[in-house]
């Protein structure tokens, strides 16, 4: 069953067509990837999915319901969480507070509860804390929970973003270039983590990546786009041998530069 | 870790320093409130800062001059007067602070009151403390209702001014008039009273307008007024904006009567408006320029402060003199006695004329006069 279905998606900015008639779907419980060279429109696709851009045409169906052009927070509440390509942490806040932001949409205490510090409110706070700590534990940085986010290493900051996304209790997790800026060891850990999220937490994953090696290792279904259009789809092997993909990544072999 | 620790300690120190600074400031306040004991302390409440500072300082000078003269003449009941100024900045909040400051300093009486808005909330404070208060300039009719019995207004009230104004308009044969105020308590009060009185007389107020303080361009308003063709235009607010309005009215070709209220009684109006001001009428409380009795005061003031006295100098001066007179008559600095003596005033004649009070503690006889601008000077309109 497809958890996410994108049909005929189109997006243009100031006359520039960024995404053209894009179709793809993500099966429930799978790890899927969206790849393509720089500037191919991958992040724009993510921004359409999560509501930050309003697509000009097409439909996005998530968990059986249309979410096209819905506000981002509503989409998150429906169960789609994302990370950002350039880290978007709340830099001056602690790691735990960062992760707690994810729980916001799953909790309800308001101003009155906060002022009176009612029993329900205190219980909820405790629950939030406990769950967020478990998220931090899951990504392996529980020890850092009281540090200010901006003081963490780059790799750990990425993990905070992950934990934060997990705290929204998503059905589908969108990862925007999770391997960017990571070294070899960190990439290996990343692959592991992605698999654990799917296997242990039952969360479907769609990632955008540049690093083909990583993508090939984790994904079950790969969609390749270039110039906002789908150019190939399939498993790692299919995609790797697709001449159009090779061309997009390495440049055309046969062309001679004068 | 050590670095963190040091930073924290530094923070700690800063915070402690800051707390001490606040403590110091509060302590400073205490010192401010305590003033050295004097023989007879009289409070002056006027705006010495803010937009009305010029007039306020002028009044302060006049009161101080009166006090100096009294002291030179042997003082009051053998005591020397020491003045203490509370700045109301023409702002209600600052006014209450100023009044509390004076009351806390245990003044025997207060003279002053320029802006009606700022004076209004202080009446309660002086009333609670039972401090005799001679209001020299502020004259909004609202002051009458808020008066707790201890305050006396020696400036004629809005009612008196309106009577003077209406009399002039009638005499000049006006049927349709335009009234313009500036959106503050004083000028709106005057404008409303004029409007009500004029319509009561069965005549027409064709325009009742407001000018926002600080705006310079009144051309739109001028066009509107001109289109209503009034026989007279009455500006009830202050001179600075009034001058601009007069200039622009004349520039746009309005040729009928223009009159301004006592807030506009200033040579500055003539200076700014230039020849446009020729023939403009002004209703005025007594000012030194044409008061025969004020000659000495005028000379003294100029000598002492090296400047010309402004519109309210004479009344402020009278206010101080009246207060001294009342204390002399009361024979003591007992507040009730002074208040009683003030109320019984009949024989006091200041440079602005004789003073006695109605049962509402306002001046019994209007001292409003009509001035006219001639050759760049205010003259008595005969």
């Amino acid at each position, binding site marked *: 069953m497809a958890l996410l279905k994108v049909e005929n998606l189109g997006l243009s900015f100031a006359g520039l067509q960024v995404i053209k008639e894009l179709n793809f779907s993500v099966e429930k419980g799978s790890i899927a990837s969206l790849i393509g060279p720089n500037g191919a429109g991958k992040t724009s696709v993510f921004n359409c999915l999560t509501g930050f851009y309003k697509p000009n045409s097409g439909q996005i169906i998530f968990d059986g319901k249309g979410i096209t052009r819905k506000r981002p927070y509503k989409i998150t509440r429906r169960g789609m969480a994302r990370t950002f390509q350039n880290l978007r942490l709340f830099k001056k806040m602690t790691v735990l507070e960062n992760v707690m932001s994810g729980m916001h949409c799953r909790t309800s205490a308001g101003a009155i509860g906060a002022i009176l510090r009612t029993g329900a409110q205190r219980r909820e706070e405790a629950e939030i804390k406990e769950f967020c700590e478990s998220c931090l534990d899951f990504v392996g940085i529980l020890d850092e929970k009281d540090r200010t986010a901006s003081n963490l290493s780059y790799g750990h900051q990425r993990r905070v973003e992950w934990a934060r996304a997990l705290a929204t209790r998503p059905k589908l997790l969108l990862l925007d270039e999770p391997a960017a800026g990571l070294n070899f060891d960190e990439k290996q850990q990343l692959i592991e983590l992605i698999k654990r999220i799917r296997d242990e937490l039952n969360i479907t994953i769609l990632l955008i990546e540049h690093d083909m090696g990583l993508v090939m290792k984790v994904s079950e279904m790969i969609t390749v786009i270039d110039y906002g259009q789908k150019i190939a789809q399939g498993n790692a092997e299919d995609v790797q041998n697709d001449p159009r993909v090779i061309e997009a990544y390495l440049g055309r072999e046969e062309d001679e530069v004068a | 870790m050590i670095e963190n620790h040091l930073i924290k300690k530094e923070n700690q120190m800063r915070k402690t320093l800051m707390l001490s600074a606040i403590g110091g400031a509060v302590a400073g306040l205490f010192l401010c409130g305590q003033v050295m004991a004097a023989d007879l302390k009289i409070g002056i409440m006027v705006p010495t800062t803010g*937009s009305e500072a010029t007039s306020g300082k002028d009044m302060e000078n006049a009161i101080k001059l009166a006090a100096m003269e009294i002291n030179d003449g042997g003082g009051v009941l053998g005591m020397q007067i020491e003045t203490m100024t509370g700045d109301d900045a023409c702002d209600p909040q600052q006014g209450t602070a100023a009044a509390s400051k004076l009351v806390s300093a245990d003044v025997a009486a207060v003279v002053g009151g320029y802006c009606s808005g700022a004076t209004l909330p202080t009446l309660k404070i002086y009333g609670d403390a039972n401090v005799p208060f001679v209001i020299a300039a502020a004259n909004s009719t609202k002051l009458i209702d808020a008066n707790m019995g201890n305050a006396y207004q020696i400036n004629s009230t809005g009612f008196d001014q309106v009577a003077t104004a209406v009399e002039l308009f009638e005499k000049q044969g006006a049927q349709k008039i335009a009234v313009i105020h500036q959106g503050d308590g004083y000028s709106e009060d005057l404008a409303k009273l004029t409007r009500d009185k004029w319509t009561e007389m069965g005549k027409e107020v064709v325009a009742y307008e407001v000018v926002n303080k600080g705006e310079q361009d009144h051309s739109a308003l001028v*066009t509107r007024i001109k289109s209503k063709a009034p026989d007279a235009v009455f500006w009830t607010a202050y001179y600075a904006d009034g001058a*601009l309005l007069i200039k622009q009215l004349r520039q746009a070709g309005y040729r009928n009567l223009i009159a301004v209220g006592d807030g506009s009684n200033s040579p500055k109006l003539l200076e700014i408006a230039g020849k446009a001001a020729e023939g403009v009428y002004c209703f005025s409380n007594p000012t030194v320029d044409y008061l025969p009795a004020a000659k000495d005061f005028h000379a003294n003031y100029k000598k002492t402060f090296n400047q010309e006295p402004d519109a309210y100098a004479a009344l402020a001066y009278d206010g101080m003199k009246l207060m001294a007179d009342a204390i002399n008559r009361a024979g003591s600095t007992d507040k009730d006695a002074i208040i009683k003596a003030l109320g019984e005033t009949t024989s006091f004649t200041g440079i602005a004329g004789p003073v006695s009070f109605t049962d509402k503690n306002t001046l019994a006889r209007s001292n409003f006069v009509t001035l006219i601008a001639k050759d760049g000077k205010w003259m008595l309109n005969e």
Partner: protein
Amino acid sequence: MSIQDILLQQLANGLILGSFYALVALGYTMVYGIIKLLNFAHGDLYMIGAFIGFLALSVLSPLIGDSWVGILCSMVLSMIAVGLLGVLIQRIAYQPMLTAPRLSILITALAVSMILSNGVMAFTDGEYLAFSTDLGYEGLELGNVFITYTQMVLVGAAALLMTGLYLFVHRTMYGKAMRAIAIDQDACRLMGIHVNRIIALTFFIGTSLAASAGIMAGTYYGSIHFFMGFVIGLKAFTAAVIGGIGSIPGAMLGGLLLGLLESFGTQIPFIGTEWKDVFSFGILILLLVFKPTGILGRTEIERM
């Protein structure tokens, strides 16, 4: 006066008032466009311009008289002096704040505004000063619409200055660099543009335009005061936002529009002088709600 005449006269009034607003709004918009700062002190620089013009005129008038020549000379002097003051303020107060939180720099601008107005207040004892010039009331009567020669000269001067600015910004290298900095500072550095120098130039021009408006207002209305910059600063700010802050033609348009709104607002039944400010602020708010970038403002595409 017939309704038609009244409306025509109000149109003229609105355009005259609007050209003052536009002149001051230009400085707001230029500074905002280039460093994204709402320079609250701009209205006060208008006021300082009037005061320096006053000083210059009182010094110059014995030499060259206080008619048009004298006014023109003191206007130029005042524009240069205030322009330099603007650059000084930018260097001392704004330059170090460019990396600070946005709110802090706004507060800094408020502080500068208070320093300027209260400084002049302390200096002049809060007095209104009267310009000695009297430019007369002669004018042209076009039907029932009356416009004085002075008004015509002032509007002409404002138009001239605005045209000059437009040509400067579009025809000279420095003007082009100014616009380019507003778009992308890094790219400008890579073109060999000394960004800080151009920013200083922008401040110079923006504030000297305000100063020119200040001295024109001083001679036209006849009096100056330490507080005179507040209301016009507020209005010019509004005008700049209506036109689309950051856009130079927008500021001109916004200024004229606000002038017209106010003068017609005065005339419209149930609005009148009492409600005209509510009317223009109300329109401002509505405009922003439905077109948040102002009339000529550009929408920016944000990148994730």
